[in-house]
């Protein structure tokens, strides 16, 4: 089943065309990595998919429900009520975590499930604790985000997203704000989620990680998808010159 379907998305900021014509679909249980140089539109694509940015043209569908339809070349968003429902299908983990600094770790995780999804607080708390256990930070439940390392904060952010039980989870460069040691903590968590068949779309600069974890790699450049396929094909034997040049540079 297709969880996410994006067709012919276009997005400009003033005169700058960031996304030119991009279509992606993601199957249930799939792990997709999006690679590409800075300014290639990866983050914008993710922000359009998560509706933090409004797209100019194209369609967006989650689990067969239309969030954005294309009416004669212009993106038309579904009514607010449908969007609110569709919002629950996905979660997003940010580059700089964006935890709520005035809430404890536990409250960061349970507040939305309790107050937005109106779920039972006790049940949500138990789930949150088990998520924290999975992330290896169950002892941090009563801490404030500022008392945690970057890697721990990012794990809390992942737990917060998972607590909403999204069908698909997006990651926007989840390790870019972290040093190599903390990066490996996060990659371990992502590997764990992949093994649990969590559907994920990950914008990343970690080529090795993308190769090891993803089912499919998408390479973007200048607002287009220039190559996509199995990681061993795209990363080890890229057909496109631009991809080859980029990989040569980052692999050193």
């Amino acid at each position: 089943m297709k969880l996410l379907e994006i067709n012919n998305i276009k997005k400009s900021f003033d005169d700058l065309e960031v996304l030119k014509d991009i279509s992606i679909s993601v199957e249930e249980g799939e792990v997709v990595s999006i690679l590409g140089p800075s300014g290639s539109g990866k983050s914008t694509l993710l922000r359009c998919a998560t509706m933090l940015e409004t797209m100019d043209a194209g369609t967006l569908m989650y689990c067969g429900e239309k969030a954005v339809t294309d009416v004669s070349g212009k993106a038309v968003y579904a009514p607010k009520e449908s969007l609110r429902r569709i919002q629950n299908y996905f979660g997003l983990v940010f580059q700089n975590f964006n935890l709520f600094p005035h809430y404890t770790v536990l409250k960061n995780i349970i507040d939305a499930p309790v107050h937005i999804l109106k779920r039972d607080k006790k049940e949500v708390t138990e789930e949150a604790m088990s998520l924290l256990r999975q992330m290896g930070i169950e002892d941090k439940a009563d801490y404030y985000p500022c008392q945690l390392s970057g890697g721990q904060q990012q794990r809390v952010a992942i737990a917060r997203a998972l607590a909403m039980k999204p069908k698909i989870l997006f990651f926007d460069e989840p390790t870019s704000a972290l040093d190599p040691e903390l990066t490996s903590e996060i990659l371990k968590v992502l590997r764990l989620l992949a093994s649990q068949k969590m559907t994920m779309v990950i914008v990343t600069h970690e080529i090795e990680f993308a190769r090891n974890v993803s089912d499919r790699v998408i390479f973007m450049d200048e607002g287009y998808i220039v190559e996509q396929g199995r990681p061993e094909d795209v990363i080890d034997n890229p057909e496109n010159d631009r991809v080859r040049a980029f990989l040569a540079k980052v692999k050193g």
Partner: protein
Amino acid sequence: MKKKPLIAVIIFASLLIPAMLSSCGVSGGDGGAIGWFFGVIVQLSSGMWASLELFALTLIFSMPLGLLICFLRRSRFKAIELVAKFYISVMRGTPLMLQLLVVYFGPYFLFRMPLSTEYRFYAAIIGFALNYAAYFAEIYRSGIEAVPEGQYEAAKVLGYSRQQTFVKIVFPQMVRHILPPVTNEIITLVKDTSLAFAIAFVEMFTLAKQISAADSNIMPLFVAGLFYYIFNLVVSFVMGKIEKKMNYYSR
């Protein structure tokens, strides 16, 4: 722990001032310098109460009103934003004393409404609240804008509505950001209450001036100054406590 220096300062000041007075040769006849000092305090006390009332009621009305103006100022509708901007610029750009006069005499000149002593009190509070609300609005705005965009984005992706985002996520962080400038503003208000003399509202400083004139002595004005100073020590102390309490998380 922090309480001791404050008490010490108050005791020190209340001993020092009479001592100073007596060394200046001021004496209140039978009671000596200290007796004179407390005599002035008693004379000023009704004014102190008026000043306190003005202070408290101004805060009670201007702080929520400021939030409302801040919302208007941040409105998506350009016209509303402009009205709020104009309001703030007038309130900040003209003397508070003039605004008090307008509030007090305005109804008379516009509608020939008779001026009553009772209205004098209301006019003072209305004038102060309208003026301070403009300042608070801008302080709130700075506090709201200090909350990073990422907080809104995280809230949106988690499904918080705009109102929920403001109440649960933005407001608590805003409060923390604005405490230092709000303390500043409250301290200024303590002293600004003396401007109410412009509409002949009898607060403490007006009384002090009257006593000073009647006695041909400048000392009652210093006693008034001492009152403002101690009042502001208390304000700083309370606000410091609140700031500390809000400091449970830091960025």
